[in-house]
């Protein structure tokens, strides 16, 4: 007779062995090294670092490999590793104004001090599959001119000088950290931005797109998008000053949004902000649109009931590790609850039939 699955332990071990085999794939092909992944799948690695909230290229590349290229699985590996790391201290805020930019564009001004720097972008490429690449033709390796590293002033600073751009309230307060204290609502902007920086790219993209299509429209222009390296400094109490201890790549996007004024604010431009670790351009733009939509309350705008305006909805559903875990848990056995439901449905049906028979008599 059927005895409910015994031997789960061996079955799990066998499944994991199979997984390792499937991950390796055809053994007649050379195995990839994590260095190759870090170099040649750099944007996948960047996404894993950004949503995994841990800046470590080698580790992220290893996670991509271990996860067979499933980026959410790779992000999960990084998060589970990150959680075990002790927190030794906090860095000083990074200064993106001092960024050595590899890419820096503005859609609001034709020319800006420091110039438009396209950098290595997919923009304006024709999305034609490059069969030469498949044939191993690497002739396209470009020659990159040597230029002195240069910092470039922020576009928003030029607008800000005229008073046309809403000045953000300044604060030296230590921002909250949702990885150390439970997320409490309503959430202030620093906390919202932290959540968005870790959020799923696809979820933010969908929300940002919805604001462009009229669900909480914010009329965004890309004031500036910049990608490059910044210094991370940490204050050493024993020394009494800060030292740079790391250099990381970040992507920053500031949108400039039309704003005709409200009960509390004069007509001016407002901004949305997106800052993401690594080269994650699409996500940083999405983040700034969503950030702007979430500011309706601070700016005294109307809540039109759009999903992107609803901080509780956005923050509670933006983390892909939470989402994927809960979604996939319905694969786990539920036969105890299902049995209880079966019992209930049968009883309700029986009672309904009996009532019908009584009525017929």
């Amino acid at each position, binding site marked *: 007779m059927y005895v409910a699955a015994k031997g789960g332990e061996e079955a799990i071990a066998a499944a994991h062995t199979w997984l390792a085999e499937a991950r390796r794939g055809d053994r007649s092909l050379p195995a990839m090294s994590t260095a190759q992944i870090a170099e040649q799948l750099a944007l996948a690695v960047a996404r894993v670092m950004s949503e995994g909230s841990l800046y470590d290229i080698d580790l992220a590349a290893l996670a991509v490999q271990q996860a067979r290229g499933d980026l959410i699985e790779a992000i*999960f590996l990084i998060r589970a590793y990150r959680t075990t790391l002790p927190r030794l201290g906090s860095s000083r805020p990074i200064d993106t104004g001092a960024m050595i930019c590899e890419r820096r564009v503005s859609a609001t001004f034709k020319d800006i001090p420091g110039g438009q720097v396209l950098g290595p972008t997919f923009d304006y490429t024709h999305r034609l599959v490059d069969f030469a690449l498949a044939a191993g033709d690497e002739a396209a390796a470009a020659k990159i001119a040597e230029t002195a590293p240069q910092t470039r002033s922020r576009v928003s600073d030029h607008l800000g000088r005229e008073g046309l751009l809403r000045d953000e309230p300044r604060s030296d307060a230590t921002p909250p950290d949702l990885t150390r*204290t439970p997320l409490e609502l309503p959430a202030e902007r620093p906390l919202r931005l932290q959540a968005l920086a870790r959020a799923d790219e696809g979820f933010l993209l969908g929300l940002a797109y919805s604001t462009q299509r009229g669900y909480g429209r914010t009329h965004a222009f890309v004031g500036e998008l910049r990608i490059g390296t910044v210094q991370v400094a940490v204050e050493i109490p024993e020394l009494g000053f800060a030292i740079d201890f790391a250099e990381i790549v970040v992507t920053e996007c500031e949108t400039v949004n039309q704003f005709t004024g409200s009960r509390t604010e004069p007509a001016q431009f407002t901004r949305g902000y997106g800052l993401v670790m690594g080269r994650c351009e699409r996500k940083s733009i999405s983040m700034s649109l969503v950030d702007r939509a979430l500011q309706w309350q601070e700016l005294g705008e109307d809540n039109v009931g759009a999903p992107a305006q609803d901080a509780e909805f956005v923050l509670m559903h933006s983390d892909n*590790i939470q989402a994927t*875990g809960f979604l996939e848990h319905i694969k786990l*056995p539920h036969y*105890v609850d299902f049995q209880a439901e*079966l019992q*209930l449905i049968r009883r309700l049906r029986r009672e309904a039939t009996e009532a019908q028979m009584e009525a017929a008599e």
Partner: protein
Amino acid sequence: MSDYNFAYLDEPTKKMIRRAILKGLAVPGYQVPFASREMPMPYGWGTGGVQVTAACLTPEDTLKVIDQGSDDTTNAVSIRSFFAKVAGVATTTRTAEASVIQTRHRIPETPLRSDQVLVYQVPIPEPLRFLEPRETETRRMHALEEYGLMHVKLYEDIARHGAIATSYAYPALVNGRHVFDPSPIPRFDNPRLESPAIQLFGAGREQRIYALPPFTSVQSLDFDDHPFEASKADGACALCGATHTYLDEIVADDQGTRRFQCSDTDYCMERRA
């Protein structure tokens, strides 16, 4: 596993979780927010229970893990081997031998003792969630003891179906104050929530911990003319013949022949031993 601290989590994190547990025990049924950590298993797969267990375990403990009443379901096996690896504690499948029991969806049939801790994995800690999706709103409702909405829901069930159509995760009033979600245990288990053991509930993704101290009153919500009823399949276990236990239904062949089996596999085996 010397790379990780005892029971995986670092000591400051365990201390933070223990504080939440103590607060939960001090205010039975109240959902205490805690800074839930990412765990190496997915959210929704018991991360809350795992964190509570990690914070409770001492090297002398003996751990039992069940899912759907069984020690041998995949997730129970996975969590048990996790703690065997990262905490090196003894594990058992026998309820009477365990000092800490982590469970998903069942309370063991063997009566628990005062020297045992039962840790529940909780998917949605908020009993009002499906009546009101907003956390800000439901917290206010708990603060004001405003449970009318829940009673209306139960009343509507009776009006529509002639009975309360909640068969698991059946809400109950704890210590006469907080309505709580006992996690998706079948309502058959509700009367056994009043227990000499400490019962802790961990919801990792939702960042909540709550607790039932020993012998806390737990009244399943009902009406005078529609009293609460702990229901189970009408049948007997095909293996041990028990008629007083919660039964799983098993479809035995292609003709749809059904039989029943104790959902608590350890209890069933003890009876046959």
